[in-house]
């Protein structure tokens, strides 16, 4: 990752210096080694804080909605660093006319999988002050206030990277990557299948338990590149379903089902929802369910694989399956 990182940063500087772009959307170093934040750098000087490492999981596509328009208004171009999975979101936003493509320079960056600081903490590390990637490329040494330890990278990957869709970029103007595309990593629908195999009562209990944690902070929605509505129906009093957190009500379920439905066929499975959920709710299980259903009912479809696709929910064939054919899954 180190090598790609250096090249990415150098190239971003170069493109800024030569005037190809006047802004760079990347990740800015933070207080700790792991808390880099999405940031749009506006000067070559400021790029000293640009980082690209194992903790740059945030998907920058959504930021291009505002920034591509702003860049155009200023007569410049914004460079955006996109990991392979991020490019799907970028394409989907292009499909929906949300990004002014001509104002964006996509620098595709290779990715070997992002680490999740929360998962490192879950391994029992407290007071983490740093990590080093070991020479084997498979483990991290974790430094803490209370001593050092080691952890396998595979065990602390962000969920979306655990089920990486592949190392290929769907769109880019320039690519910096050392990765061969080995295709998807793991079976991303395994979690969905596991749930489907449960009895309805167990499924209900599972979701009841998970969703009762929801605090309706809207992080999932606000981070989601598909949830890019100017005003969400859940924020719009005129919509009739606007709501704010209310415990013991139906609202959490309603919120998550509707949200999943609204992004069905548009969700690229970028995994941001699960990554940002402060309560650790596996929200991707909603979206992957829809992706799996769509694939099974209407044929394989990957939102964002290319710009301009017609999504499965704004499409049909005369011999689509009947809703009645969607039968009870699993036992009783």
């Amino acid at each position, binding site marked *: 990752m180190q090598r790609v990182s250096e090249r990415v940063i150098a190239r971003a500087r170069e493109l800024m210096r030569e005037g190809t772009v006047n802004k760079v959307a990347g990740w800015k170093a933070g207080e700790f080694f792991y808390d880099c934040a999405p940031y749009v750098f506006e000067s070559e000087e400021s790029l000293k804080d640009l980082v690209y490492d194992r903790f740059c999981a945030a998907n920058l596509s959504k930021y291009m909605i505002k920034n591509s328009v702003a860049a155009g208004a200023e007569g410049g171009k914004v460079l955006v660093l996109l990991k392979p999975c991020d490019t799907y979101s970028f394409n989907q936003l292009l499909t929906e006319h949300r990004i002014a493509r001509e104002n964006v320079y996509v620098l595709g960056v290779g990715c070997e999988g992002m680490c999740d600081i929360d998962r490192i903490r879950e391994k029992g590390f407290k007071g983490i002050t740093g990590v080093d990637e070991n020479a084997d490329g498979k483990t991290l040494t974790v430094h803490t206030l209370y001593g050092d330890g080691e952890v396998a990278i595979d065990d602390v990957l962000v969920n979306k990277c655990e089920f990486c869709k592949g190392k290929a970029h769907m769109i880019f103007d320039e690519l910096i990557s050392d990765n061969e595309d080995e295709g998807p990593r793991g079976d991303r629908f395994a979690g969905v299948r596991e749930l489907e195999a449960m009895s309805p009562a167990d499924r*209900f209990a599972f979701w009841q338990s998970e969703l009762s944690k929801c605090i309706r902070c809207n992080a999932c929605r606000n981070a989601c590149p598909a949830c890019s509505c100017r005003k969400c129906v859940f924020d719009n009093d005129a919509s009739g379903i606007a709501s704010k957190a209310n415990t*013991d009500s*139906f609202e959490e379920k309603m919120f998550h*089902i509707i949200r999943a439905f609204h992004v*069905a066929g548009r969700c690229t499975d970028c995994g941001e929802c699960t990554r940002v959920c402060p309560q650790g709710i596996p929200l991707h299980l909603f979206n992957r369910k829809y992706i799996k*259903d769509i694939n099974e009912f209407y044929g394989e479809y990957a939102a964002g694989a290319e710009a301009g696709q017609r999504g499965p929910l704004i499409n*049909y064939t005369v011999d689509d399956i009947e809703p009645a054919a969607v039968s009870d899954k699993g036992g009783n």
Partner: protein
Amino acid sequence: MSVNADWKPRIVAFCCNWCSYAGADLAGSSRLAYPADVKIIREPCSCRVNPMFILKAFERGADGVILCGCHPGDCHYSTGNYYTRRRMALLFSMLDYIGVERGRTRVEWVSAAEGAKFSRVMNDFVAQIRELGENVKVGDLRCKE
């Protein structure tokens, strides 16, 4: 099963204006009875039915929701029910996935000439909902007090 003997199912039926609502009218003029638990909401087309409406019905305490439209290929608006078919297949699958009984939701294609079918479908659906009993899984507790 429901423990409350007085319980009567609340069933919302969304019917498209051109086929199913007319089918319901025909069922009426033909005196083809079905239980009064079914309450019909008229829509221009089955494709007007937003999943939000269905969830809203459940939130408010509905025990079953049925959506009726023209037969695929016969939509008054040509293609509306094709979209309905996809949307509802996915929505119902999701409701099933979160553990809501699959039988609480249904789509039926009923033409304006199918008064008898309308009645049959409603009788059948009500029987199914009675079998499933009260909807306790989805719904706002505040509405149930």
